[in-house]
């Protein structure tokens, strides 16, 4: 009898196991991803390289530069709202050119309505110092059907747009949760970074970009948070950059500072981080005087030291407080994040937020800090944009 019972139990168990397997979830399939940093570190041969200084022309160079792998229009700004409200914003348009394929290359009579030479990404963020809330939203579009583009007069991704005005630009972008409607008027002339706008970032030919900035832009308008409209004014900063493979392969990321001092000077510094953690010799910066004259800085001119790290929910540590020394201008500054949670967690993972600038503990200015490449390793690798997957 025991044998028969065992036999029945075995058959029943087999049935149960088989039935159980019917609703076992299957393992995930292969899904590849790409980090944000690698987008800037490599580009197929078909793209133009920035290899030497060339004169920049305006307003023509405000428009996009087809032929290069990537390009961006990068606004950041510190704003004052009613009752001492402290706000910061970021609005960026990124253009990533696609490799020419059978589909994308036939631009005269494209085989598809969606045939595009590039894809565009827009990042819109708002930091509310009162509530320490960080609003972020990203958008993508193909450079097709008029969905995105940049001319001398207009830079846009769908209805998020920067339009040229008589005295500067009008920036308008928003989501259901927040929005910006800002008038921007440059207070200083254009600053050409590096050697007349030729900004070398690595040892190889082509490890460079065209780079110019407007470091102080008078800003006024409205910020919307939910349904609340806040009248604001303050200072913005515009960075424009384009190139192909501007970063060398051994770089992990960068720390970028855009600081507007109360004495009227502006200071931009970027520290390119090498794989071993040290600063690349191609790190650089610029110090802009009150009257708009500027001095280009090299890696040897300044020193940046992280003082405090903030660990996010994913366990990634971000350096949010820094010491900065610029002996040639007799500057010893401390840079502090206004609040910690200003981290982008969308397609590209980075930290970008408003900072206070202090000297010996006293406030001397405001600015924006960008930390890139910290989340590009292991499982935290920035997880989308399969542009170069193959």
């Amino acid at each position, binding site marked *: 009898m025991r044998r028969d019972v065992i036999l029945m139990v075995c058959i029943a168990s087999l049935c149960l196991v088989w039935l159980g397997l019917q609703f076992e979830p299957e393992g995930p399939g292969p899904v590849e*991803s790409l980090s944000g940093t690698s987008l800037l570190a490599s580009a197929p041969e078909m793209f133009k390289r920035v290899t030497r200084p060339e004169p920049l022309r305006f307003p023509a160079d405000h428009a996009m530069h087809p032929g290069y792998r990537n390009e961006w229009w990068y606004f950041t700004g510190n704003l004052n709202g009613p009752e001492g409200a402290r706000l910061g914003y970021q609005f960026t348009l990124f253009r990533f050119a696609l490799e020419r394929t059978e589909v994308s290359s036939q631009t005269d009579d494209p085989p598809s309505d969606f045939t595009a030479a590039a894809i565009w990404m827009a990042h819109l963020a708002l930091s509310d110092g009162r509530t320490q809330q960080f609003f972020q939203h990203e958008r993508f579009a193909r450079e097709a059907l008029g969905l995105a583009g940049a001319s001398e007069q207009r830079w846009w991704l769908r*209805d998020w747009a920067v339009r040229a005005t008589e005295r500067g630009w009008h920036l308008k972008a928003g989501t259901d949760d927040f929005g910006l409607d800002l008038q921007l008027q440059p207070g200083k002339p254009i600053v050409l970074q590096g050697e007349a706008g030729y900004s070398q970032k690595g040892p190889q030919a082509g490890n460079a970009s065209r780079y110019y900035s407007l470091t102080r832009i008078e800003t006024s308008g409205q910020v919307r948070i939910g349904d609340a409209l806040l009248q604001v004014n303050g200072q913005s900063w515009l960075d424009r950059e384009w190139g192909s493979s501007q970063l060398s392969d051994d770089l992990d990321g960068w720390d970028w500072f855009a600081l507007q001092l109360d004495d009227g000077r502006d200071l931009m510094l970027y520290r390119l981080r090498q794989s071993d953690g040290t600063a690349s010799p191609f790190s650089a910066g610029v110090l802009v005087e009150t009257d708009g004259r500027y001095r280009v800085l090299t890696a040897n001119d300044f020193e940046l030291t992280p003082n405090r790290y903030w660990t996010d929910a994913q366990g990634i540590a971000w350096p949010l407080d820094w010491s900065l020394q610029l002996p040639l201008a007799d500057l010893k500054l401390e840079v502090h994040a206004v609040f910690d949670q200003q981290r982008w967690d969308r397609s590209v993972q980075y930290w970008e937020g408003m900072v206070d600038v202090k000297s010996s503990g006293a406030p001397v200015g405001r600015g924006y800090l960008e930390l890139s490449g910290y989340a590009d390793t292991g499982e935290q690798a920035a997880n*989308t944009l399969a542009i170069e997957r193959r």
Partner: protein
Amino acid sequence: MQARITHRFFKRHLGQLLLALTGIAAGIAVVTGVALLRGALLESLDAAGSVLVGEQTISVRSETGRVSVRQYADLAVKPGAPDWIPVLRLPVQVNGQRFEIVAVDPLVAGAATSPMLGPGSSLASTIDMNGPASLVIANRTLNALGLDADDELVVEHQGQVVELPIAAVVEGDRSMDRRLLMDITQAQALFGSRGELSELWTASVSSDWLDEHLPPDLVWQTSAERRDSAASLTAGMRANLTAMSLLALATGMFVVYSVLNFLIVQRRHDFGMLRALGLPPSGLLKLLLSESLLLAAFGGLIGLVIGTWLADQLLALVAQPVGELYGQLPLVESAPSPGLYTAIWLLGLGAAILVSVPLVREAYRVPPGRLVRSQPPRGWTLVQALGFGLFPMLAGGLLLLLSSGLTAALAGLFLILSGMVMMMPAAGFGLLAWLGHLMPRSLWGRSLVLLQSSRSRIAPALAALTLALALAMGMAMMILGFRVALDDWVGRLLQADVYISVDRTEQAVTPAVQLDDQTIGRIAAQDGVAAWSSIRQRRLADGRRIAAYDLPEQAWPGFEWIDGTPDRGQFEAGLAVFVTEPFARNQDVAPDGVIEIPTPQGQKQLRVAAVYRDYSSDQGVIAMNGVQYRDWFDDPIRDSVGVYLQPDQPLTAWLDDLSEKVFARQLSWITPAEVRQQSLDVFDRTFRISWALALLVGLIALIALTSALLALGLERAREYATLRALGLSPQGLMQLIMVQTGGLTLLALTLAVPMALLMDIMLSSSIQPRAFGWSVPLDWPPLAPLVWTVPLAVLAGLLAGVYPALRIVRSPLIRNLRAD
């Protein structure tokens, strides 16, 4: 001790054990198979859009069927516009199966993960936008195709065949079944579908924004609304399947009853002994119930396994017709859940308890110490049976008359069948007695009369057998009768000599010729043309279908009017429409009712003049005047043109002229005979599932027959031995047993035929109209199912007699004489 008793008994009667298990497993398998199939049909219904960008997906479609790319671009840049994902759906064939390419712009969805692709996957990270054209496929679909990730898929779209590599294999949820994701740029370039999109998706947008910004010809729907409307499409098919599966379970349970009943007969002696040894009635109850439950539990598990396998086979059968009829893609395999398995398994246990109740009652009647077999109680008399059977039949009839719902009709059918089943044994034995009296002195007559003594044993088996045979034959009759009706309908509908459409196989990408007024003018100008008709079909955004007709005098006899007055003048003036029977039933409209049609020019109202017979869509069609349609929808194209030739004009010569000289092979044509054949092919594919179910029920009938006859033969071993001892030769005994089993089969067949006819009538006149909207004209039932079933059943009956006959003939007389 009880376990030992059970074990010893079943060990000695392994055949009976296997039969009981088979009965349970077969019933549960059919219920499981159909339940899973229902789920598969329901779950996949157009879920792709709803889960690709989350549960809150809103989909925007056009009244004209296609959203133009320009409309998309305009909507995308409007202030406050949400992230619209443009979607192009292309029906394709892969390995002869219907698939769908869902081409999207993955970029818009960005990093947002998509439930459709599986945990953590986003469209942007999965779909390759920049490489050569490639596909994203779900693991399950890939496995179902028997392919590897390195293989290329051969995809056919409108005659164009392309080989596409697989860019990524995702876990995917059920909505990825039979769907191939691809980048919209690549899909448009590959299949030449520029300019138009199937729909737009977005994860969330306020209805205020939509109301303010959507152009009038675009409409929006939430995922829940889409699911509801898609689910209602196949409601009839699913209800029918469920009803049939429950009937199959009922038949299976008859088998179980018959076997358990036999087992009790075999053990009357044991029970008497046990009672004499002090086993209380409750102990006996426990013993019998635990045996039934054990059998049901074990057989149920096996049934679940077989049913799951069966579901996938049924799914393969039904995939094509579901695609053709409903424009839906079923899953590649069924989606079982622990809940469903448990429910069906418990249903099996419940049914086992149910059939055990009368058996336990009978076992209770065995007095303690009864060591010899007693004559079991006789069954109902014919009058009793009529009395008991008429009640549920009347209830069922009333239900059918008083309610117009499908569920009520199925319940009515159940009740009527139950009533008939109750009458069957009494009617059968009445017939048996009459036959016996016809030939009182022959061995045949005596053999049949002998059966009367085992009446209560044979009755359930006879009822099961009759029900199973009636189900199998009734379903087959309905299908064949419907096929005849469809054939007649197609024959009447197609009045033209030839139907012409644009050839999409020769020039799949962008046909140079379109069937517009100019082209039709050139066709009509050919020599030999007497008249022409045209049709343009369009699915409205709410799912209703319009057929816009231009009809000459010759085409009108193609309609078979069911209700109302077919006022041609009103139709041609664009003042009235005709609707098909399913449309009238589904939408609850009648002649002189008014229907609203959303058009690019706003809502239009039209009077319904008449209802006509149509089997082309169970959702129904609105037939409207072509001129009116073209005016409202600004769509000058026709899908096909019917040409009526002059009597002396040979068709072949006319077609040669048309294709070679006028349109250089840009047109294709089809004759009414070919359309008829294609329609019947579609029909046959559609009813594959019903055939499969009829076959399954037939199989269960065979099991019922075999088990009943084997039980009968084994039970009567002692009587047969007595006959041998009295001088009946082994050959005579063989003959007697075979006459009994063959006779029983014939008896069941005789009873099953009227039941099958009744089922055919009820399915055709009551269930079909309620499930699908159309009625089938009553006609002589097709007799082919009888022709197939009768010889098969008789043969099975005879074969089922062979084993017990041989066993009795070969075994020693003395043992059988002593047997109890």
